[in-house]
């Protein structure tokens, strides 16, 4: 007999990644916005400042201290998770596949359809996280990673790409949460944390 309301279970390492990712991304965004305010990406010194409630560090030097500390947690967490999903083949079973794309265009089952969307969205955030690291590295060490910085064209493009991680991640969090809610109700969300 299939249980109707079984609680989904997540791998311990998947939960660990999820927790550390949320914590490190929050630190990166708030300290990053503190740095942003020293010279807004849009408009420079005449640009619009981010309100202090969303900032971390107190001033530019403090924001930089947090940003260049949390970057280790953020990047290394993503690194071990990448190795983990490769070694365990989770990347084949737990991320978007051709079957999801098929379901998106053909499925008449709304549960399957939502599930396909859910998998597509959380798969798509991985390249966004990687781009945040690459564009960040290109700005942090532009002399030593000159080849990487020059791929972005101009400094303004580089700053903009790096900054776009912020609205993208915030939007992702909202969509990811609501899709998870649709797919597995609050029990699914709880299972990813506890």
């Amino acid at each position, binding site marked *: 007999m299939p249980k109707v309301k079984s609680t989904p279970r997540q791998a311990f390492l998947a939960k660990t990644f999820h927790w550390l990712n949320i914590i490190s991304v929050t630190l990166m965004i708030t300290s990053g916005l503190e740095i942003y305010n020293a010279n807004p990406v849009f408009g420079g010194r005449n640009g619009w400042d981010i309100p202090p409630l969303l900032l971390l560090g*107190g001033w530019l030097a403090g924001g930089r201290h947090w940003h260049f500390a949390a970057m280790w947690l953020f990047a290394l967490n993503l690194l071990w998770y990448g190795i983990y999903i490769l070694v365990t083949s989770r990347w084949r079973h737990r991320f978007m596949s051709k079957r999801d794309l098929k379901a998106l265009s053909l499925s008449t089952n709304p549960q399957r359809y939502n599930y396909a969307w859910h998998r597509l969205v959380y798969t798509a955030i991985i390249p966004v996280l990687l781009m945040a690291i690459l564009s960040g590295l290109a700005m942090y060490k532009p002399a030593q990673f000159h080849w990487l910085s020059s791929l972005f064209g101009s400094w303004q493009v580089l700053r903009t790409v790096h900054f776009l991680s912020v609205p993208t991640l915030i939007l992702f969090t909202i969509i990811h949460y609501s899709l998870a809610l649709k797919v597995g109700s609050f029990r699914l969300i709880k299972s990813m944390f506890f």
Partner: protein
Amino acid sequence: MSLILPQRHLSRRQLLKLSGISSLGLLLNGCESTLFSETVGHLFEPLNQSLGQLLLSQQPVPEFPVSAIEPDKLIINTFDFTPNIDPVQFRLKIDGEVNHPLELSMADIRKLPLTSMVIRHICVEGWAAIVQWGGVRLRDLVALVKPKPNVRYVYFVSADGYYESWDLASALHPQTLMAYAKNGHPLTADNGAPIRVASPIKLGYKQSKWVTQIKLVSKLLPNQGYWEDQGYEWFGGL
């Protein structure tokens, strides 16, 4: 060590900093947030500095074509005031733990081999500008004074009271210049005339303007640099 200490006028940046801190005090955790950031900085600076030193090489950083120069993008940043220095009276003192301390006039400096480079000048605030700098390699000046083998750091003392210290490896990088020309013209007072530091491997605040003294030393002093002493990281490598 006769480092000129900065006069404690309230600069625009300090004022902004102070107002930032005091307005944060309105928040419940405002003061803690600033306090923690100092601790976090102290905890991670050694690691981040090791990374910077590991990445530092004596290979030149690739340069930009002259057509890429962005004359309007270089913002003038000064912690206090802009000194007007008579280039004829001016002498650059190079001393410290060296065998042949020197005092050079601008005429002496201009006789040394000129290096020109088009590099990206990057400010800690986040903006950047592609600039052409012309001047003499700091490594050439260092060679002239014959430093003692225990020298590890270089201090720059400026006419406005600004002071900075660098690791020797970065100071000897082939693109670390004592510059007296910008974008093909003589340096203006705003940009640090008669002579300033220019380099693609350090953040802007490391690149002192109006340098009057270069001091080679074996140990870092408690005063490491104007912004460093306020809480900014010391290495500032790019």
